[in-house]
């Protein structure tokens, strides 16, 4: 399954780099604009479960890497032992300045909370997301707290360290 998928991907899309990590696992690096089409293509090829959406801050290169982790649902018990098992990491790189991506909610509906989370923790904007409001955090952070240039110690000192004890 993987070799044919690799061939198909490389033949269909321009600028897509495929690395086969293991027998049933591969990593796909795609340009930012082709993410929705590649994602849709992968979904139609059987990777119908978006397990996770995550982000890496490569501060020295000045890039964010957004990772879509895709797997497929097992339909029969026998699938677990067959070579139907697939695991695809779809990655894309976007600049750290004004990072933005197209939302993929119309392909995978469960991307909604993941995109909100990445928006609040890394400050990546998702075009077309219906409500990019904070998901977990309660305060406003000047720099989104998961970026590498967010100084946690300093922030903690200033915020929680400045609160005086009430008694004694």
């Amino acid at each position, binding site marked *: 399954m993987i070799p044919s998928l690799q061939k198909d991907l490389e033949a269909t899309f321009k600028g897509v780099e495929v690395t086969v990590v293991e027998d049933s696992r591969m990593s796909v690096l795609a340009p930012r604009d082709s993410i929705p089409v590649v994602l849709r293509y992968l979904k139609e090829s059987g990777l119908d479960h978006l397990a996770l959406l995550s982000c890496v801050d490569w501060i020295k290169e000045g890039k964010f890497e957004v990772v879509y982790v895709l797997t497929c649902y097992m339909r029969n018990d026998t699938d677990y032992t067959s070579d139907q098992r697939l695991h695809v990491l779809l990655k894309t790189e976007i600049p750290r300045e004004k990072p933005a991506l197209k939302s993929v909610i119309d392909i995978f509906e469960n991307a909604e909370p993941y995109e909100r989370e990445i928006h609040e923790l890394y400050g990546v904007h998702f075009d077309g997301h219906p409500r990019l409001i904070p998901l977990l955090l309660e305060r406003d952070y000047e720099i989104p707290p998961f970026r590498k240039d967010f100084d946690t110690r300093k922030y*903690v000192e200033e915020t929680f360290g400045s609160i*005086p004890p*009430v008694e004694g």
Partner: protein
Amino acid sequence: MDRNQIAKWLKSPAKMANKYSLHAVYFCTGCGIIEIPPVITTRWDAERFGIIPVATPRQGNLFMITGYVSLKTLKAIIRTYEQMPDPKYTVGFGSCPINGGMYWDSYNTIKHLDRYIPVDGWIAGCMPRPEAVFIAITHLWTLIDKGKADGYLRYQENYAAYRRNQEMLFAELEWPPLYPCDSIAEEARK
């Protein structure tokens, strides 16, 4: 009933009744809550000590904060605490509410719980065992006996300071002050 305690019962029945029927608010935060099911069920059976978990804060008088407190949780904790009827007792469970524990430099968890709500006692450990809960409860009994478990009174007394600390973290608190006081937001409006 312990015969030695009859004098105490006659002297202040309300206090004794309070002491032996602690109703714990079933409020879970952090990892420590994993120790609470064994505490209240057959293995350690907290009812031997008169402790029973209740569903709403309006029926409870014991509030155990069982772990690290994120900002969102702190908001819920303050609201829950303010809804409990007096007299009420708070116990911080685990090192995280005491001083931040292993989350001492986290961007989203507070460090010292007693700067936002009054705390009557602490159980140290990461995480404490169920036995420690019962040791804490017997200590709490002693404190109640001596009138030293007075967190709810301290809250009334120092409410302005508590409220100020709460407002330093949350720019907008959605509820008005529990006791009359000059809050930061009020001052800013003036």
